[in-house]
């Protein structure tokens, strides 16, 4: 009995009639779809009615020969053909054969494609493999040629030709139906239905078919367009609809025959064919859009990403560029275009990284850590842009550099590694090639020197067999090895700063330890600074000198590692520490703090941490909280920082 409840609910979800009518209504809201449907409906009426209303046209061998090859006139709206017959009448009557041809092909396609597709997708296993193999086989045949073979035996037989076409193109529909059936079958409600003891045919009719109507219509409209082109092509070759029968393809052929005398005649049938094909294609497009509406990610409207407004000069506070500052971020504000306007992913972010220093940027996901890191390199991508701020590095503001100039910085001055080593390497090239490319792009080394450097890099990251590794493709590497290769590539230009975005998150625990150890030793040997983005305070404790804590797009605390762990100056930091009490970095260990990071664009006024803070007072709601100096190189964005620090 327990199964009944979920199942009734489920039936409602897939209730086909209501889902169908909603689908139709959404389709009819699109002008493009309505126009196509109206055109096709009119065409169908014409195809049925005109042979009845104009009974003599089909057999008319010749019209008024004295009046042949005329352009459009009031008697003959579309002119007359080489035998003096009215073009418009022939066009209208000729639509019948065309549509019959398309209809026959579609019926055959559906009769074969839908049941077999359902069967293959639903049953799976060997049957599925066999049917797929046959489908591939048939699809690799040249359809037109085989149709002509059939017509060589069954002369002028439209139905035979289009049945053949249907059989040869049915695999295209078969594939679509099969692909659409597979996931539906996996879904929970199907499982429930099977347990409830319903017959497979009922499940298919009731649950599977309604879900795949969209893809079927899309494919059918494409196949209809293909069938139409084939039918007109065969008529053009007079393999079907031989004279005197009117047909669109045959009329093009007539027009070609008299092209030198009257160029007009190929236009009416050509336009009729093109319009019908377009109507079918655009209808398919509209159906696809409607049936994927709501869940398909919209492509970002603009792909010009690096465009950044140059700052308007003087009012930006000048900062002193210390020798002991390698990277100095000031008031960095980054926003992203979203459907509801611009949202700020990072706001007034300021911190420094000294030469050879390791600085951790910590916080939960969605706090603006990665955004900050990418903004430094000018790699915000889709819709992101820097609103304000500076990023001083080696005497220049990275945020004002042109794309060309920042390219010079990337790799040779600042390198970047991400949390997903497996997707950071190009799958199509060998490791050695990719490293050599990085060496050539970021150093003057060429040829044998570059090759030697690659070898050296692979040794530096302690890959067991560098020579062999260089010959491998990324997919042949384990996650840990891939991350070593990625690090090797980052080292190619001997950068002064390495930005490492969650470099160990995707790896298992032993790998994490090894990679951290590697980063530490590289830093020791090369004096390279590291900006380490992580959510894991354990990692911070392991290798960082100083820490920047970010929350909801803002820096909430900066401190030395020792200070941070001993005397955290912000309730958020305290909560992070409390949720990770033993400073361990076990795999997948995420700090859990009650509540969640506020949505971008929906920030509370006053302190952003307030909704989750246990120590708030009314003072916390009053306006933006500044970053306060609370100790030596220790800052906190909390009005009660001093009390918090001493607790």
């Amino acid at each position: 009995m327990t199964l009944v409840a979920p199942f009734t609910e489920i039936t409602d979800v897939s209730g086909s009639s209501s889902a169908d009518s909603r689908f139709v209504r959404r389709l009819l809201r699109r002008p493009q779809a309505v126009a196509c449907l109206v055109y096709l409906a009119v065409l169908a009426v014409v195809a049925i009615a005109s042979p009845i209303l104009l009974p003599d046209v089909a057999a008319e061998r010749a019209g008024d020969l004295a009046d042949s090859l005329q352009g459009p006139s009031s008697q003959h709206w579309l002119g007359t053909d080489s035998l003096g017959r009215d073009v418009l009448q022939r066009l209208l009557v000729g639509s019948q054969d065309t549509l019959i041809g398309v209809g026959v092909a579609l019926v055959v396609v559906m009769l074969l494609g839908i049941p077999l597709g359902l069967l293959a997708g639903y049953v799976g296993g060997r049957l599925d493999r066999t049917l797929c193999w046959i489908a591939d086989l048939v699809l690799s045949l040249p359809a037109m040629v085989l149709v002509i073979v059939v017509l060589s035996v069954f002369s002028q037989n439209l139905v035979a030709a289009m049945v053949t076409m249907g059989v040869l193109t049915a695999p295209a529909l078969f594939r679509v139906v099969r692909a659409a059936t597979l996931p539906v079958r996996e879904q929970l409600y199907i499982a429930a239905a099977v347990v409830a003891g319903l017959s497979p045919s009922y499940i298919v009719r009731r649950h599977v078919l309604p879900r795949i109507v969209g893809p079927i219509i899309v494919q059918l409209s494409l196949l209809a367009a293909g069938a139409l082109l084939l039918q007109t092509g065969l008529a053009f070759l007079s393999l079907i609809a031989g004279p005197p029968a009117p047909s669109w393809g045959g009329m093009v052929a007539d027009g070609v025959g008299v092209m030198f005398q009257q160029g007009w005649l190929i236009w009416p049938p050509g336009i009729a064919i093109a319009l019908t094909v377009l109507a079918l294609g655009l209808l398919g497009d509209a159906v696809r859009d409607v049936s994927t509406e709501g869940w398909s990610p919209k492509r970002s409207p603009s792909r010009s990403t690096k465009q950044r407004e140059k700052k308007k000069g003087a009012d930006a506070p000048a900062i002193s560029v210390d020798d002991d500052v390698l990277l100095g971020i000031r008031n960095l504000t980054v926003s992203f275009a979203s459907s509801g306007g611009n949202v700020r992913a990072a706001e007034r972010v300021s911190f420094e990284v000294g030469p050879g220093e390791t600085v951790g940027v910590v916080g939960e996901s969605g706090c603006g850590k990665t955004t900050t890191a990418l903004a430094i390199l000018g790699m915000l991508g889709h819709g992101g842009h820097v609103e304000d701020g500076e990023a001083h590095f080696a005497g220049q503001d990275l945020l004002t550099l042109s794309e060309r100039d920042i390219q010079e910085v990337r790799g040779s001055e600042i390198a970047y590694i991400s949390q997903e080593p497996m997707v950071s390497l190009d799958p199509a090239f060998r490791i050695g090639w990719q490293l050599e490319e990085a060496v050539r792009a970021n150093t003057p080394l060429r040829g044998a020197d570059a090759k030697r450097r690659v070898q050296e890099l692979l040794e530096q990251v302690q890959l067991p067999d560098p020579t062999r590794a260089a010959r491998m493709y990324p997919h042949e590497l384990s996650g840990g090895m891939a991350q070593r290769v990625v690090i090797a590539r980052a080292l190619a230009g001997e950068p002064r700063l390495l930005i490492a975005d969650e470099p160990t998150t995707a790896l298992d625990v032993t790998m994490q330890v090894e990679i951290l150890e590697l980063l530490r030793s590289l830093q020791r040997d090369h004096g390279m600074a590291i900006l380490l983005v992580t959510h894991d305070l354990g990692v911070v404790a392991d290798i960082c000198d100083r820490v920047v804590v970010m929350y909801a797009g803002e820096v909430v605390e900066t401190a030395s590692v020792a200070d941070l762990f001993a005397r955290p100056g912000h309730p958020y930091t305290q909560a992070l520490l409390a949720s990770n009490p033993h400073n361990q970095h076990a795999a997948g260990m995420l700090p859990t703090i009650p509540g969640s990071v506020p949505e971008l664009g929906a920030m509370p006024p006053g302190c952003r941490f307030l909704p989750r803070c246990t120590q708030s007072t009314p003072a916390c709601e009053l306006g933006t909280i500044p970053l306060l100096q609370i100790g030596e190189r220790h800052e906190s964005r909390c009005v009660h920082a001093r009390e918090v620090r001493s607790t």
Partner: protein
Amino acid sequence: MVSMVIRRVFTAVPLLLLVSSLSFVLLSLTPGDAARQILGTRGTPEQYEALRQQLGLDQPVYEQFWHWLSRAVTGDFGTSIINGTSVAGEIWARLPVTLSLISGAILVSVVVGVAGGVFSAVKDGWLARAIDALVLVVWALPVFWVGSMLVVVFAIKLEWLPAVGYVPLSESPTAWARSLALPVFALSLGSVAAVVKQTREAMLDVLGSDYIRMAAANGIPPRSLIFRHALKNAAIPVVTVVGLQTIGLFGGAVLIENLFAVPGLGSLLVTSALSNDIPAVQAVAVVFTLVVIIVNFAVDIAYGLLNPKLRSS
């Protein structure tokens, strides 16, 4: 690689058997007597008897097919029932014509299609939209109609190129090229459109991928990102579409050869079909299928070269 070759052979044999047996099966399915139907009211009783024998209609279907097959594997496709010439000889004479037409069209599709696709992927904006519109229009226009328009414009109005006809390469290379220019242009338009579209989509897809971003973050210059990394990865779907388009080109070639009076296999196929010359039709279909199989094979090899994952597994 070896398993791939075996798999291809494994599918090639049934394909060829299917295509070559098709007309035998159809003949046996014909209600009444095929020879009578073919001759209609034209033939004398003697012609009728001769045709029956030539088609092997006096034997059971499988014997007819076996008979045909055992000769076909030696390259003997019988004689035309219309003019009694050797079908194989006719095919050998015409094959180079069709192949040059089709390889020309493939070449144009790949070169123009990939260049256009890369260009429109990198330079976004009006060009991409223009290409979209063009792709749609070209897709909707039947190839024989486009061909006719090209004749009107380039042969009749501008008089740049010959309207119809074919000059063999051995006679005059320039005249040969000129005689093929319009047919190749007409034939390739549709596949150029398809290749442009696929190339652009694949390039955009790859250029948005993590490994391109990571390579960029580590100082790999844009030129290399586009022309080495993105292009090589995008080539895999592009090869698929080129393969599919090539199969489609054989259908297009049938129409184009007839329109431009090019004496290739396509026009042989149509004239033979119109006169029910079944031995000739059958042989042309088998040769077409064979070429398609070879194309598929080439596509498979290209996959292997482009995708290291396939190669090692």
